[in-house]
Structures are given as C-alpha cells and as structure tokens.
C-alpha cells in the first residue's frame, strides 16, 4: 500500500510565525503535491514537484514556498503565517508515468492561524 504521511494532524500557530508542514511518501513516487482544502472551494493546488529540487507553482502559490531535497519528502513553508491561511492542507504523491496520474493522499494537516 502506498503510504503518504504528514507530520501533524493539527497545528495552531500565531500570525507572523514561520510554519513548516512535512510530507513523506514511501512508494518512490516522482511527483508530489500540496493542496489546501476549504469548505465550498474543493482542493486547490499550491505547489507541486516532479523531481528532487524541482518545484512548480500551482493555482494559489502566494504566501507559500516548498522544498524537495529528497525524493520521498516534500515540505510546505508558510514564511509568515496569516489568518487567511487557516485551512486543511493535503499532501499527495503519484508515479511519473505518461498515462494517468492517480494521486495518493495523506491524512491532512488542519492548520489554525490565530
């Protein structure tokens, strides 16, 4: 079974703090993704990575950055957290194939910024 784990299920931070969300997958997948999930808005892609040290902006990258130093690990960074970044953050991974890319999701981190 593919396993995607996220470092925290719940996180509470203060405005202005630097926040790190970690994601690890154990299936040697090339692709990794960070989404945020908000009620009524579905999942929106923040950043993704097709390879180590490689990153691409998704639909809503503002206020976020990412790091991929190792194939199995993909970190999402909030440089200066703001209250509008309170959300559920989902990490996903998928194999790099030329056919369909089914994504496998982690359990999510619910971040509250006070």
């Amino acid at each position, binding site marked *: 079974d593919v396993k995607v784990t996220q470092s925290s299920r719940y996180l509470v931070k203060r405005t202005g703090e630097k926040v790190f969300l970690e994601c690890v997958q154990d299936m040697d997948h090339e692709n990794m*993704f960070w*989404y945020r999930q908000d009620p*009524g*808005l*579905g*999942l*929106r*892609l923040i950043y*993704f990575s097709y390879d180590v040290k490689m990153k691409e902006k*998704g639909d809503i990258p503002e206020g976020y950055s990412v790091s991929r130093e190792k194939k199995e690990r993909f970190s999402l960074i909030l440089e200066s957290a703001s209250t509008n970044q309170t959300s559920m953050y*989902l990490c*996903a991974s998928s194999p790099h194939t030329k*056919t*369909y*890319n*089914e*994504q496998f*999701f*982690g*359990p*999510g981190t619910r971040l509250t910024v006070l």
Partner: protein
Amino acid sequence: AQSVSQHNHHVILSEAASLELGCNYSYGGTVNLFWYVQYPGQHLQLLLKYFSGDPLVKGIKGFEAEFIKSKFSFNLRKPSVQWSDTAEYFCALKGYSTLTFGKGTMLLVSP
C-alpha cells in the same frame, strides 16, 4: 485552461435511494477523469477512474460513472446508497498536467 464543475454542493438521500452526482468538465484535449471520496475523518481516496476504452467504469463499493464525451460529463452513480456512503465526493480532471478538482458534493444518507 481546464475546469471541473460539480452541480450539487449538498445532497441528502434516504437509504436505498439511487444516487447520481453530476460532474462536467472543460478541456479540449484527451482527458483522464477521477472520482475521489472523503469519508468523515479519513483520507481522500480514489473511487474510480476513466482513462480510455469503455466509457462506463466501475469502482469500489458499488459506484460507477459514465464518461459522455459529447456532453463533457462524468457523472457518478450508485443504484442504492447506504448510510456508510455519507461523505464528500470530488470529481477531478487530468488534462494538460496536474489534477483539477471540482468543489465537491457533500452527500448525507439518512438511515
């Protein structure tokens, strides 16, 4: 650009009722289509997928979906829902590169 539209944000059904959740997409090229489900407190997981071939695809837990290219649709169906189907359902499209998700439909099945 690619986009996905789910018709209903909330659906309430009684057990044994039939289910159809609408999904329409916008993309001019070859598509891969997915339905994901998120049960309360659980991971998002894949219900079924369409890649090519038979437009009627069957997934887990008795769900199926039909890809109708002329209508740009990929509706999810189940003949008889159970209380345990209460969840949020997301339609997703892979067109050019990444997945684009719809906004989700929350299904509540009353016993």
